[in-house]
């Protein structure tokens, strides 16, 4: 029988993978993809909790839809930034993109 904890485990694994990618990848596109993974893991958690603990309300599902919409917008802007940076600086390597300081 598949229960709540199974979904949560999948979500946690997905989040861990996303976090690993976020912290280790050098490519800006890969970093953005990792962020998408983390967002999707959160969506899984929300839907699972909604299904198992508050069966009469659809709040979790609605949240997920919102997150998907926001994530789409975020990716659009993120990719646009990546493209602009690549055009301007000739690189998408995040350890070279460090001029946003001081």
């Amino acid at each position, binding site marked *: 029988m598949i229960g709540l904890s199974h979904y949560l485990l999948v979500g946690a694994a997905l989040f861990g993978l996303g976090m690993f990618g*976020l912290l280790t990848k050098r490519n800006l596109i890969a*970093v953005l993809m990792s962020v998408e993974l983390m967002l999707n893991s959160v969506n899984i958690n929300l839907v699972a909790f909604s299904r198992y603990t508050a069966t009469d309300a659809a709040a979790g599902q609605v949240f997920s839809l919102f997150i998907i919409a926001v994530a789409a917008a975020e990716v659009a802007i993120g990719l646009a930034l990546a493209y602009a940076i690549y055009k301007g600086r000739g690189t998408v390597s995040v350890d070279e*993109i*460090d001029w946003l*300081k001081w």
Partner: protein
Amino acid sequence: MWAEFSLTHAWLIPLLPALAFVAISFFLLGAPWLASRLAIAAMSSSFAIALGVGWAVVSQGITVETPFLMKTVWFSMPGLSIDMGVLVDPIAAMMLFVVTLVSLMVLIYSTGYMAGDPGFSRFFAFMSLFAASMLGLIIATNFLQMFVFWELVGLCSYLLIGYYFYKISAREAAKKAFMTTRIGDFGLLMGILFLQILFGTLDFTELAAKVPAFVKANGAATLTGIGLLLFVGPIGKSGQFPLHVWLPDAMEGPTPVSALIHAATMVVAGVYLVARAFAIFSVLPGAMTVIAWLGCFTAIFAASIALTQREIKRILAFSTISQLGYMMMALGLGSLTASMFHLMTHAFFKALLFLGAGSILHALHDKADIFEMGGLRKSMPATCAMMGIAVLAISGIPPFAGFFSKDEILAAAAHVSTPLYIAASVTALMTAFYMARLFIVAFLGEPNPHNHPHESGKSMLVPMGVLAFLSIVGGIVPYAFGFGDWVRFGPAHHAGIDWGVASSSTLIALAGFGLAWSVYGAGHKKSDAIAQKAGVLYTLSFNKFFVDELYQWLNRNVLTGLARILYWVDIHVVDGIVDGAARGTGTAGSMLRRLQTGQMQHYAAIMFVATVALALILAFTAGAVAGGGKL
């Protein structure tokens, strides 16, 4: 009718000249004739109202105990409420009369004296403001209102002494006058603040009610200190020793200014302040003693300097200091009547003396040394006659004005303290001597062939004539009509003439005349020989006892050293704290900014670790409370 109107509109007396000042300085700077006429018209109206006020005081029986009061709240905040208004009692009424009269005479005189001066309108504007400030000071109901006008008087003296601002000496003299009196004003301000703290009011009538009870309950020690602080103001303003140094230098202004400063507006402000606050001073025997002795010392000190001065206006300046010392001494002796009486007669004859000196300077094109004058009686008979009257009046020859007032002071001194009486008599002798010296050297003797003097015009002689008339009758008429019944403090003061004092003072004055004649009547040879013989004394007196040099020395050595120490403290301690605070912030910032690498993944890692740490903390603390996590 007029009296009633004047009394309820007494605030117009300072307001009219003030308005004249505004009108002249904004609209009439290019119209000298109109400016002078406007100033004179405003002052005449003030004089008319002052006369009405005087008549109202007499006819309505306003006394020192029941003054006419009219006030409104000026500003108020929790714990402090200051009124502004009009206080008219016989003392104020007398002052209003004297100040408006002398100012009016000086203004009329100035139309002749200042004719053709490029700053003619400016002069009349400042003179109007000067008189307005003084008149406002007179009718003040409380210390703060008085202090505001007091400072205005100081400002106007600065403007007028420095009237010839293109002369370095005039600028320096103006600065000196302002700063010297500022020293006194600081003491006065401290005294006023202490009064406010102690009594919660600055109103003269309220203070007069509260102070005696306070002294009875707490002793006089604290209040004596405050009284002496208050008295520092008059020391500066009224040219008492040791802050008298500005007065002789104030001669740099035009002569009508000197007349106004010395007779009516500036220097008597100090005497008037002490008289106005007499309810405070009179219950402080310690402060009274200081006032009496300081006044006496100033009187004799300044008179001894006047003996040897050569410039006509300088002689008169030291004479003023000396006479102010007389007035202060009278106050210290507790005789407000004598002091105010002398203030009034002195205003008449000293204004006359200065206007006469101005007339001479006008004729001789500012040649001020009396030993270069000589024989002016032939070329300037009217000036000579009126100066003669003034000399007789200041020396105290009956029946001229000075006799009656000086006699009251001497009588008061004789009653209270013999040393003071002797010192005052010696001063009287010196006064008669140096005034006779001035008169003999300048008017009698052989004319100086290099001079081509001419008598002054009507606009100058008429005001002098009025003042000469007052110098003759200004003593006997008030005396006959009971000046002491009105202008007094405490019980009515029926000073009959003390014939012993009166005859001895007259003899002393005559002796002074005789001495002066024996020295200067025969020409300069004899006086030069005496100066040679007197040696050190002559040098001391001629150089004003080197007080100015002492201040210079103190300034150079003590003050500069102190300034250097304070400069070091400022640079290293005060600035050090400020600079240190800035430098500390900078250092902390430059260290902290190392944390900001710009590497987005560092930020993400820190955020992750922080979130995990926060979650763990919440889980464990929540677990400790609720006995285990929910999951």
